[in-house]
């Protein structure tokens, strides 16, 4: 473990802001806000794509009169809010350290260690951070090295950037580990001028030298398909030689090579031909004998022993085991392994004795456990998983120790309000109400729509009910407006609740938004805001409709069916309209009964049988009268 002083900044926007991207907070001291802004924008990985977030990138720059070199790492995330133009925007959390500090640290700095440390930091105040960095693990890095990493390292030594393609399926963790593995196959000093990114946009002009992308840039970049194993013939000779040299190192020998390259920390530049040639020479020096690495406990064994020490109230032993567990949680944990550990945790619930209820060690254990099972930062979906995995035999009524809830609360970033609501709800009303008080009506509805969680939905509807009390007309109006904007939470309710509950919830939401039984005007207004109301929503409306609204609702139901079946504008729709007109004939003069889909087709209409008969009869009568007149004139 090493500690480095890191200066930090946040580049982004504040919700609803009309401003451009800018530094919205930063540490003071060696780097100014303007410098942070310039370097962060200069080392952008290109226009953000929500599917590629979070995105981790590194950068390098010099500052000050002595051109002091710095290394930076940024994590770009997508907040749930929009800017003032209703556009999504990215938030970039950034920390940078002096190269001199990196070189002087007792352990080498890996991108993953810096990323994990940065994710733990509280980006507030003005002071620089003290970043706790885990030890440079040559053995783990060696395990991450594959053919693509070897080739990427070799190609970087041609001086041209490398773009790895066909790897969109890889998780962020795997991509970050790959970037670390490539850097580990070069003398450490090259990190001084190496900008990497877990995802770049190739249409954007960027300064990233090693990255993943959907397609490679058109000019000047090596395109490297992930694990494609293509022949090396088309690459320059220096790259071929370096790759072949790397291939000679396997297993423990490879770990030793990584260790040896990590000692070569004098600054090197990819643009400098002599630095690149020196890298090849360094690699050709043979490694010392393999290093024996101690065996490690499996994670399941660790969890089992932790559970035993908690059950036996062995706090000291738990502390030692938690340290190991924390280390394992900080390592790269494949998603498959996380699933296995969750199954294990579900099958082996932790039984916390009274004596350890307030133990700080237990809380630390739960934090490590959460990191191991779900990764960091925790997401709202992880909280829901956690309720199932650690909530005991009845997940609908989870029995979670306060230490676990506190640990969850601490690991949840502020950008996951639904997770926070769930945890606050479990912690009790004293914790829930302060959280609710910080949320606007808009945020509440947004959370309900996004989380699609039954418990969150109940909390939100309850809270909206509290706010829409008739004693506060402004608040009532605000709730009404928000529910209209969020289309009465139709999709959220429909996707979470069974039919019966859906109808009840729609009824409740419609009541909250209108505070009375629905009049024909209300029905028209509601339907104008809803594109295709579901059957349960229409039933909810029916259940809340006032007297005299039957025909309005009938037209609405029929219109919905006609539109849903794609019959709008057809003869069938016309006949349905005609039928409805007949059914509601005595009350058919109200303008609200006109249906939007009622439209007569242009063109000649077929004459009906009755007028033709009438015409024939009329003609016959006229003929008889004329004939009679003529006869009368002739006879007289």
């Amino acid at each position, binding site marked *: 473990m090493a500690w480095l002083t890191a200066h930090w900044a946040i580049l982004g926007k504040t919700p609803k802001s*009309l401003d*451009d*991207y800018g530094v919205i907070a930063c540490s003071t001291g060696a780097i100014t806000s303007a410098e942070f802004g*310039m370097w962060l924008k*200069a080392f952008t990985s*290109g*226009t*953000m*794509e929500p599917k590629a977030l979070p995105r981790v990138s590194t950068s*390098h*720059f*010099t500052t000050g009169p002595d051109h002091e*070199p710095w290394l930076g790492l940024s994590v770009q995330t997508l907040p*749930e*809010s*929009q*800017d*003032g*133009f*209703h*556009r*999504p*925007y*990215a938030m970039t959390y950034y920390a940078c350290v002096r190269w001199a500090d990196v070189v002087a640290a007792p352990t080498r700095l890996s991108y993953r260690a810096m990323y994990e440390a940065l994710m733990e930091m509280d980006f507030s105040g003005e002071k620089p951070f003290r970043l706790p960095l885990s030890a440079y693990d040559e053995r783990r890095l060696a395990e991450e090295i594959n053919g693509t990493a070897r080739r990427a390292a070799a190609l970087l030594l041609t*001086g*041209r*950037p490398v773009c790895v393609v066909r790897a969109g399926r890889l998780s962020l963790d795997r991509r970050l580990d790959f970037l670390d593995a490539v850097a580990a196959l070069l003398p450490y000093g090259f990190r*001084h001028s190496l*900008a990497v990114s877990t995802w770049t*946009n190739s*249409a*954007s*002009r*960027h*300064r*990233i*030298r090693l990255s993943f992308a959907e*397609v*490679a*840039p*058109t*000019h*000047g*970049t090596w395109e490297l398909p992930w694990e494609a194993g293509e022949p090396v013939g088309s690459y320059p000779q220096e790259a071929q030689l370096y790759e072949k040299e790397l291939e000679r190192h396997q297993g423990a020998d490879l770990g030793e090579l990584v260790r040896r390259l990590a000692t070569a920390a004098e*600054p090197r*530049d*990819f*643009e400098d031909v002599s630095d690149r040639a020196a890298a090849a020479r360094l690699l050709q020096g043979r490694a010392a004998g393999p290093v024996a690495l101690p065996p490690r406990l499996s994670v399941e064994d660790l969890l089992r022993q932790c559970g035993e020490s908690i059950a036996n109230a062995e706090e000291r032993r738990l502390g030692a085991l938690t340290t190991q567990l924390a280390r394992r949680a900080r390592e790269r944990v494949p998603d498959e392994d996380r699933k296995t550990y969750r199954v294990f945790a579900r099958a082996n619930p932790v039984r916390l004795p009274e004596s350890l209820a307030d133990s700080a060690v237990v809380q630390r254990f739960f934090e490590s456990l959460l990191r191991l099972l779900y990764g960091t930062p925790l997401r709202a979906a992880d909280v829901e998983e956690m309720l199932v995995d650690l909530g005991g035999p009845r997940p609908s009524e989870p029995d979670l120790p306060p230490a676990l809830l506190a640990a969850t609360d601490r690991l949840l970033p502020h950008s996951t309000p639904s997770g926070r609501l769930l945890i606050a709800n479990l912690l009790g009303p004293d914790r829930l109400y302060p959280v609710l008080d910080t949320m606007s009506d*808009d945020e509440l*509805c947004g959370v309900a*729509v996004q989380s699609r969680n039954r418990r969150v939905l109940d909390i939100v509807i309850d809270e909206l009910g509290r706010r829409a009390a008739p004693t506060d007309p402004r608040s009532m109006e605000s709730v009404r407006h928000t529910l209209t*904007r*969020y*289309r009465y939470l139709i*999709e959220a309710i429909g996707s979470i609740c069974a039919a019966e509950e859906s109808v009840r919830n729609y009824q409740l939401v419609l009541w909250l938004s209108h505070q009375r039984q629905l009049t024909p005007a209300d029905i028209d207004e509601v339907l104008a805001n809803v594109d295709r109301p579901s059957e349960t929503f229409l039933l909810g409306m029916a259940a809340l409709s006032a007297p005299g609204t039957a025909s309005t609702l009938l037209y609405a139901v029929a219109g919905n069916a006609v539109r849903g079946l794609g019959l*709008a*504008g057809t003869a069938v729709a016309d006949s349905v309209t005609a039928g409805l007109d007949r059914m509601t004939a005595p009350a058919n003069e109200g303008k609200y009964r006109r249906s*939007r*889909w009622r*439209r007569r087709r242009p063109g000649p209409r077929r004459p009906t049988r009755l007028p033709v008969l009438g015409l024939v009869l009329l003609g016959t009568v006229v003929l008889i009268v004329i004939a009679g007149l003529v006869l009368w004139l002739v006879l007289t």
Partner: protein
Amino acid sequence: MVDTDSVPGDPERGREPDIAMWGASGSGKTAFLAALSVALNRSGSPGWRLIGENAVSRTELAKLRDTLLQARTFPAPTEALTHYSWVILGPAAAARRRWWWPWTERVERAPKFNLDFLDLRGDLYAESEANIDKQALVDSLVKSRGLIYVFDPDREARVGDAFKHLDAALHDVAGRMLVGDEYEDGKLPHYIAVCITKYDDPRVLRIAMEGGFTQRDPHDELRIPRVPEDRVRDFFRRLCREARDHNSEMILDLLEAFFHEDRIKFFVTSAVGVFIDEDLGRFDPDDPVNVIDDANGGLTIRGAVRPLNVMEPVIWLGRMLRPGAMRSGRWHG
């Protein structure tokens, strides 16, 4: 330390752009580009297409189209200088017989031209020239010959920074190009399509309709009110007067001071067009809004995407920059 002023590898990344997008953040530059291929597909003369010249441009074009047509929303804000190399293909004229050899028909060449577009984050225009990205931007502007200047009346009414974004970068470009003797008339050589965006915005439509700038095209079944070509400049001046920043009134003067008047053309555009109620089958002045809030607080496109005047500025610039490529003459926009 590496020279961070340059992009690693090939710093020029191939050609310089022909057409640079110019406008403040959020003014709709990328949305305009996203709508271009839809506009070509929907154009009155069938056969117009937009294709990416290389894998990167093809991928980006597909993403932009999907954003508008499938996700029914707008592209994310652009964060870096972004290049698109696109090829615009037009319909070929009908085959003709040569008067001097009437026995065989001669297949007419279809209009086809390559255009490289430069898109970027709008705030870069207002940065100081000390900023390393601004230097790259000014380099590109100097080398390009076509500009699409995007003026967003909605943003101008709310923020009012169009003048700032135009003035700073214009002086930087002029400083590089007009100080020497190359351009003796003292004007920049670019063709500039001034595009008033977001015509579908109710406020913009209202100003256009109530100000008497619109008229109806009798051949337009959708009955969308349009600002005729000879009134767009006045409409632009009017919108500049409505802006939050009084300096906006100087934008037109600034453009005409730096560019040849006959190389400036004004367009009223909308990336998604106004809302057309499919039941009604035509534009409804009481219900024109085609962009509405979605459940997450973002924006969603309500009806069909019918770009207005998006293809026209590009084709005009194409005709000015690549006159030979437009020879088939089927399109006279």
